[in-house]
Every structure is written in structure tokens, then in C-alpha cells.
């Protein structure tokens, strides 16, 4: 039952989920880029975490 609900959620919002992950990756771009060019550990850490979350969303909905 839970699996079926999860499946339907994935299918129902497949497109929106992928689009959301894609947008999140690009919104994260400036933060992560700032971290890379200025060797800013906080920006690097936060930026990398966000892109991992975006990857997780992409994994779930793709």
C-alpha cells in the first residue's frame, strides 16, 4: 500500500520533481562557484550539500 502510494507520488509529480531538481542545481551554482573560486569552506560545504539534495530529488523522480 505504502509502496503503491510512493509509486503514484513519483509518477504523478515526475515532471515537476525533475524540473525542481534541475532548477535547484542551477540555483546552487553561484553558491558552489563562490566556494570553489574563493576556497570558502562554508560556501563549499553548503553548496555541495544542496547539490547532493538536488541529486537525491533527481534520483527519486527520474
Amino acid at each position, binding site marked *: 500500500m505504502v509502496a503503491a502510494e510512493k509509486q503514484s507520488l513519483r509518477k504523478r509529480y515526475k*515532471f515537476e520533481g*525533475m*524540473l525542481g*531538481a*534541475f532548477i535547484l*542545481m*542551477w540555483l546552487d*551554482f553561484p553558491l*558552489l*562557484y563562490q*566556494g*570553489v*573560486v574563493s*576556497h570558502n*569552506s562554508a560556501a*563549499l*560545504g553548503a*553548496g*555541495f550539500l544542496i*547539490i*547532493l539534495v538536488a*541529486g*537525491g530529488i*533527481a*534520483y527519486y523522480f*527520474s
Partner: protein
Amino acid sequence: MQGLPQMSVWLWFLCLVPILAVLILMMVFRWSGGRSGVVGWVLTLIVAYIWFGGHLHILSAGTLKGLWATVWVLYIIWGAMTVYNVVDLVGGFKVISDTFTRLTGGNKILQLLVLGWAFPGFVQGVCGYGAPVAVAAPLLVGLGFDPIFAAATALIGHSWAVTFGSLGSSYSILERLTTLDPGRLALFAAFFLGIACVLCGYSIAHMYGGWKCMREGTPAILLIGVTMGAVLNLVANFVAPYVASFVAGAAGLIVGGLVVPKLPMYRPKVADYTTAEVAATNEPYSFNVAFFAYYALIIIVFTVYLIQPLKAYLAGLINIGFPFPETTTLLGFTNKAVKKYQSIAVFTAPGTLIFTAAFLSYLFYKARGLWPEKGGQMLLNRIIKQAMGATMTVTTMTMMGVVMMEVGITRYLAEGLANTGRLYPIFSPWIGVLGAFMTGSNTNSNVLFTGLQWDVAKLLMISPFVILGLQTSGGAIGNMFCPMNVALGTGVTGQGGREGECLRRTALYNAILTFVVGILGWLILYVFFPGIE
């Protein structure tokens, strides 16, 4: 090996895990490219962190570079989808399909060979970067072929032309990165790719209808393939390597379109011909009107890419790219700082040319009263829905590929293959394939591995010309198998998420062609011409 771990078999196989995981998930478990790409990217991050000294800075830089590198490919995919949907919205593919059915007497093999093999080769001659796949695959779909099959056909069909395509961009890397005689470099590359060209024709026929179709298609394949292969070799050796694919593709189109349909075995049966004729009389408008978008695309591409002063002027107008600092792993593998990483010359980018063609064709169809009401909204809805799957695949795969390169995993895999001694020529083209698989580009594959292949050739005291010919041939053939191109093929045919099925279709032919080319190289070096320079 500077900056890389000590070579060991288990670590070498561990480096293959992200690639194998992606292939198995897509081809066996039929996962979408986007989902498999995320797994591959995360596995790469783990391998890089634990065994290659990849720290947060270099892993972030690799991921970001990968993200930026997708812009170029996505621009093409979205543009190609726009062109396809503009033509589809006015019912153009029905007209194109009927016309090609009439010209070829309904012979599907001929349609495949002309539109899926010679035509993409011809387009690749001038503008590569996925454009041949983006143009040819939708046309095949319009002719009634299964979309995944159409994408796989275009992928296989254009691969032979990649090295000397895009006005020789991949070949020029061999010239630039070595001090070897350019003419002799072209000799072996053209020889291997000429053979690969004929095999591409047979691969397409086999994929369509097995051995029976190969037998039936043999006269056409030999006529078109030998023509394209011979012209490729003649032009590469005696005229200019930079236009070899273009001229060879044009010759193939002429032979395939004008000569082959007149052969007795391909003349249409009376019943088929009559049906096609009837269909032709019912067409709402002419073939030329329906094909306008592709005429516009070909004219725009040829104008911009063949008129060098115009291309140089446009290329210098706006260039978008980001500077990246030098990055070094904890083991000392270094990537130099770049002022503009993978900069995009906006006005000469294939995506811009494709979007321009789409806009011109929209104006043309609108002026002729063919554009449907609320067509703009329909177009936008279709493109967004169709493009998302391919977008995720390209994004995640490219991030994986670039991280692998940044921390030295790709280099480590190639160095491992270089330890195979006398068998090296057989593995040499696989290094080219690896480069194309990771980067989606023959040019980038050559950038990555020309130095390595040249060094190994010197070490083994075998001809560097043959080995570099094998490298670039592998890089070209690998274009049919790399996830980025496959995503492009499935994207433009509206099959985003089915990349695994497409990969499964091209995997076998990629392996056969690469193996044949490798064996040929080995025979040249150790059997027929030992000691050849």
C-alpha cells in the same frame, strides 16, 4: 604515474564501477538515464574521495564544471526538439514521410541507409556536436520508424564521420598535440574510419532486420559505404582532412538518393508504388514546404561554418564561460586553471543555429497559414515535457564524467589499458571509446588521451600513426555509445527516460566496430607490416 595511486588490478576495476553501474542500471534494469547518472555520480564521488585524494574543493569544482558543460548539449537538444515540433505541428512529417516513401518505393532499408547513415554523416561533416543525431532521428520517426530505433540508427550512422567532421575539429587535436606528420596521421585514421563506415551501414541493416536485411541491403550498403569510405580516404589524404567527412557524406547522399533506388533489386513493386503515388496526391502541400525547417537549418549551418571570416567574426562577438582555479588532489593530480572553461560562442553555437532555423520556419509556416491556433503554447508544452528526461540524463552523466577526469580516474583507467603490451593495439581504440563515453566528444577524447597513446606507442616502439589512428577512431565510434549523445537521441524523439533501451541497441555495434578496428591495427603492426613507422 604522477598524482595517481599505484597501479593495481583491483583498484582499476574499482574505477570501472561507476561506469559499469550506469551501464547495468540502464541496460539491464532499464532505469532512466537521469536516475542511473545520479548513482554513477555519487559512486564516482566516493571512489574519488577514498582512493584518489578527492577533497571537497576538487569534487565541487568537477561537479560544477560538469554542470556548466551540459549547457552546450542541452542547448542543442532543446533547439532540435523545437525544430521537430514546429514541423510536426504543421503536419510536415506526414508530407516528408509520403515523399520519401514514394522516392524509395516504400523500401525501408533504403530510407534508413540514406536518412540514417549518409545524411547524418553529411551533416556531421560541417556541424557535429550532436546536431546530426538531432536532425536525422526525428526525420526517421516521421517516416514511421520506432523512436528508439530511429535514435540508435542516427547514433550509429553518424559515428564514422566524427573525426573528420565538424570541419576536422577532432582530427586537428591530433595535429596540435603531437609533432607528427599530419598527412600520415590522417592516413590511418581515414583507413580505420573508412572500414568503420561500411560496418556502420551493416550495423544499421542488422539492427533493422537481422541477417536477412543485411543480405538484402548488401548492394546498397556496399555502393554507399564503399563510396563514402573511399571518398573519405581520398579527400583526407589528397585534398584536405578538414572537409573529408563532408565530401564523403555528400557523395553518399548522391549515390544513396539517386543511384541506389535505380538498381533493379530496389525498384518499387507496382502495388507499393501506386499506393505511394495516391498518398502523394493527397498531400496538403509540397515536400519543399514541409522540409523548409531542415533546408533553413542546413543553409544556416553551412553559411556560418563554411564562410570562415563570418564564423570568426560571429565567434568573437559573445563568449560565455567561467574561470576556474587550479585544482589538485591530495595525491597531486593537477588540473590547470582556466580562464573560460568550455566557453560557448553564442552566435556560432549549434544550438543558436538550430533555434534560428526553428524561428525562421515558424515565420514561414505562419506566413503560409499553416501554423495552428495556440501553436506557440502547444509547442512550449511539448518541448518542456519531452526535454526533461534527456536534460536530467545529460546533467548527471556529465557531472559524473567531469569528476572522473578532474581527479584522474579516467587517466588511471587509460594507463591501466596501456599495460597490455603487444595486445595494446587491440585495447587502444577502447581508450578512445572511454574518452568519448566520459565526455560525449571525440575531440575531448583526443584531448584527454593523445599524449598517453603517443607515449605508449613510443614505449612499445610501434607506429604512433597507427595508434593515434586507433585512438581517434575509437573516439569517433564511441559517439554512438556515450550517454550524452544517447540522451540527445532519445530526447529529440520524445523518448526521454528510455536511454537504456537505446544504449542496449548501440552497445553491440559499438563493441564490434571497436574490436574490428583494434584487430586491424594489431594486424597492421604485428602481422602485415611489422616495424611500420
